[in-house]
Each structure stands twice: as C-alpha cells, then as structure tokens.
C-alpha cells in the first residue's frame, strides 16, 4: 500500500470533494422544490395533473439511477441542446449530473412530502377552511409546517442517499469524489489508499449531514 498517491493526486480529490458537495447541494434544493410540486400534483383533484405526476414518480423511482444518468447525459441533453442551439457544444458532464440527481431526488422527495402531508389529520384542513382560509393558504400555514417536522427524518435519509448516489456520476467523467478515487486506482494500481480515502470522506460528509444538519433541523422544528 502506497499512501503517497493520495498526496500526489490531492488536487483531484479536493476538486472531487468540492464537486460532490456542490452536486448534492444543488440536487437537494432543486429536488425539494420539484418534489413539493409533484407531491401536490399527485394529490390534485385534476386527473391529468395527478396522472402526469404519478408517472413521473414511477419512472424515476422504478429505473436504476445509473441508467437515468447515462440516458440524460448521452441522449436527452445532447438532443435537447441540438434543437435549442444547433451546432453548439452540449453542457459538460457536471450539468448532466445536476439534472439527473435533481430529477431523481424530486421523485423520492415527492413521496416523502405526500406521506407527510397525508399523515396530518384531515380535521386540520377542515378547521382551517372553516376559519375562512382558502386551500392554498391552509396548506402553507397549517398543513405543511406540521408535515415538515414529521418528514425531517425521511428527508435526512434522502439527502444522504443523494450524496452517495452522486458517486454514480463517475461513469460520465464528472469530476466528483468517486471519479477521483477510481482514476487514481486505475492509474496507480493502488486500490486500498484511494478507495479507503474516498470511503472516509463520504463517511465524514454523511455524518456531518445527519448529525449537524438534519438533527439540528429536527431540534429546531420539534414540537415536543
């Protein structure tokens, strides 16, 4: 085992860690927003909206993320780009990563939101409506804040899954953490140092996410 390879390739690792964090952050924000609207769509009274959102969730939850990444990077984005900007270069791999991770996260977040919202007693909505609130206001002021506290553990789970799933982006040469480790392993024939380092960094990142971010939020929004 030659641990000096980590030092030799430190730039690659640092760049990888930065991109992994960036990818997770963007996908978390976009996925949460998209997911919220998809979950509301799934509970909508309009049939077409309900069906479209259900199909979306099933598609992204029912196919492997690796396949989604390959499809989005090599097929979907180049063809959309070809139509929008003929002759222009397609965006780099990291943008495919943002899109794939966000769309995938949205499907899971939608189900987390739906579960949270539906776990709130219907009486809450009825009470809010009888006070004269319209449906949207009642959802924003009464239902979502209560649902949010119940959803936090599940959301934390999804963040962590997202962080780890970003490692799949190495197949399209996105310069994230797993790409760095894989390339060092391939180039140096050293397996333990790069992969153990990678594992340790992911562990630190997930521990940070679950301990500080999620637990902190849970404490802040706790009703008990």
């Amino acid at each position, binding site marked *: 085992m030659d641990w000096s390879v980590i030092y030799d*390739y430190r730039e*690659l690792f640092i760049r990888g860690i930065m991109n992994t964090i960036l990818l997770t952050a963007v996908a978390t924000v976009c996925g949460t927003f998209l997911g919220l609207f998809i979950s509301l769509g799934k509970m909508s009274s309009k049939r077409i909206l309900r069906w479209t959102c259900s199909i979306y969730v099933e598609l992204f939850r029912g196919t492997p993320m690796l396949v989604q990444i390959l499809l989005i990077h*090599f097929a979907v984005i180049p063809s959309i780009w070809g139509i929008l900007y003929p002759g*222009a*270069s*397609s965006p780099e*791999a990291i943008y495919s990563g943002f899109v794939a991770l966000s769309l995938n996260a949205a499907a899971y977040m939608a189900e987390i939101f739906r579960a949270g919202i539906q776990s709130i007693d219907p009486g809450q909505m009825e009470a809010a409506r009888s006070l004269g609130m319209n449906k949207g206001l009642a959802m924003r002021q009464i239902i979502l804040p209560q649902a949010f506290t119940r959803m936090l553990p599940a959301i934390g789970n999804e963040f962590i899954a997202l962080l780890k799933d970003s490692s799949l982006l190495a197949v*399209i040469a996105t310069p994230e953490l797993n790409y760095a480790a894989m390339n060092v392993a391939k*180039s140096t*024939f050293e397996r333990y140092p790069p992969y153990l380092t990678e594992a340790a960094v992911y562990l630190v990142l997930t521990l940070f996410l679950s301990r500080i971010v999620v637990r902190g939020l849970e404490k802040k929004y706790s009703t008990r």
Partner: protein
Amino acid sequence: MRIGTNWFKSLALVVGVGMLLAGCGSGGQQTSGSGGASGGSADKVYVVGTDAAYPPFQMLEADKISGHDIDVMNAIAEAGGFKIEWKNTGWDPLFDGLDKGTVDIGISSITITEKRKEKYDFSDSYFEANQLILVAEDSPVTKLADLKGKKIGVQAATTGEEVVKKAFGDTYEGLKGYDDMPSSVDDFFNGRVDAVIGDNGVLSYYVNKVKDKKFKLIKDDSFEKEFYGIIVKKGNADAINKINDGLKKIKENGKLQEIYTQYFGNK
C-alpha cells in the same frame, strides 16, 4: 425489553451470517488460487480475460467475444498447443483477476510499459500502435502541446491518458477519463471535450463509424511507438513460454499478418 433482546438477536444473526459468507468467500478464493498455481498439468485450461469494449481489437458480438486480439489469442493457443477459455472481465477487474489468480492470461490491447512490467510479465509484442489526437476539422491544433488548457477526453488508465498527464500534469483539470472509448468519442461529437486521444486502431475505427461529422486525426511525432503484449501474473513462466512459442509460430507462418489484414486492410 423482550423486543430489545429479539432485536439484538436478529442483529447478531445477520452479522454472523455475513461473517460466515465473507469467510467462505475468501476461503474459496484461496483454494482456487492454489489450484491455479499447481495447475501445470497438460490439459490445463487457461482463463483468458479481456475487456470486450474496444473494437476492433475486442468487442462483443451478440453473446460472443470477437475482434483482432481474440483471433490472435485463439491462433496462439492453437499453434502453442494449449486450451483457453474466454472471460469478459472488463479492464480493471482483468488486472485484479490476474493478481487474485481467477484470470491466467490477459489480452486486451495492453501496451507494454515499464510501469506495468513492474507488476506483470508481458509476452512478446503482437501489435504496434501509436496515439492519435481527434479534433474538429477546422481546429488549429497540430500537436499535443496545442491542447494546453483545453478539455481532452481519454479512456481512463490507458496510454492515451498517460501522454496527457505527462504533458500537462497528473491532475490536469481538463483531463476527462472515461470508462470506455465510445463515451469519450460521443462526448467529443457533442462538444463536451475539445479533443480525444487514443490508440490509432480504435480511434479510427470509431470516428469512421460516425457519418456526416467533421473531424481530423492528428499524429504527433513526439508520441512514442507502443507495442501491445499479452500479460500474465509475475512469475508465471509456464504460460508466458507457451504464449511466446505460439506467437512465434503464427508470426512465421503469416497467420498474424492475415488477421491484421482482415481488420485493418493492407498496411
């Protein structure tokens, strides 16, 4: 309390089964490893590993592995008088398999390099290769040095990657190491990388498959000539002698040239 102990029991069971499986796994590997080492008998079947994603050298056709290297290895085995069995391992697991003894021989357009020689034994060379640079037709690039600051696609851990690292540093930001050659060529035509560097045989094979695209292939004379060799675990003299013997025979009787012509035409 009762639930607590049950929970603990199930956890212990899962961990126990896991450890048992892990134990069996490593045990099994050891036996197969020692079997491989002592397998000097006449009818030993050598497991030949390859990464069948590098046409026209090795590729998958329906469920069969085919290509230039495959034909060469089959001819060597026939001439050298030993039996082989193919295994599509992929590039990385090929080297791993050689280390662990699950693969005896590797043939996969492997360039003979000093670095690789430190870990593995090579046969004599069976193919001469050089690197080519793929750029847009109207590109001003004429040599490797012109690519400084540009995004370059390569197949990770190949000599194509090595020349880029040698020129621009091990952690050059524009270097994109793909898992396979087709992905990097694909991303080149989608404009995500400015150039691709790869072996002549493979690169010309791919770009010629893409119709209606404008590109050119540049040969930088500073690239060293490369030679493909067949690889075995260090110290496996038995296998390497048989391979070199077979290779010598097919070089002499013209079979190697015949296979070359079949894939690349006349020189």
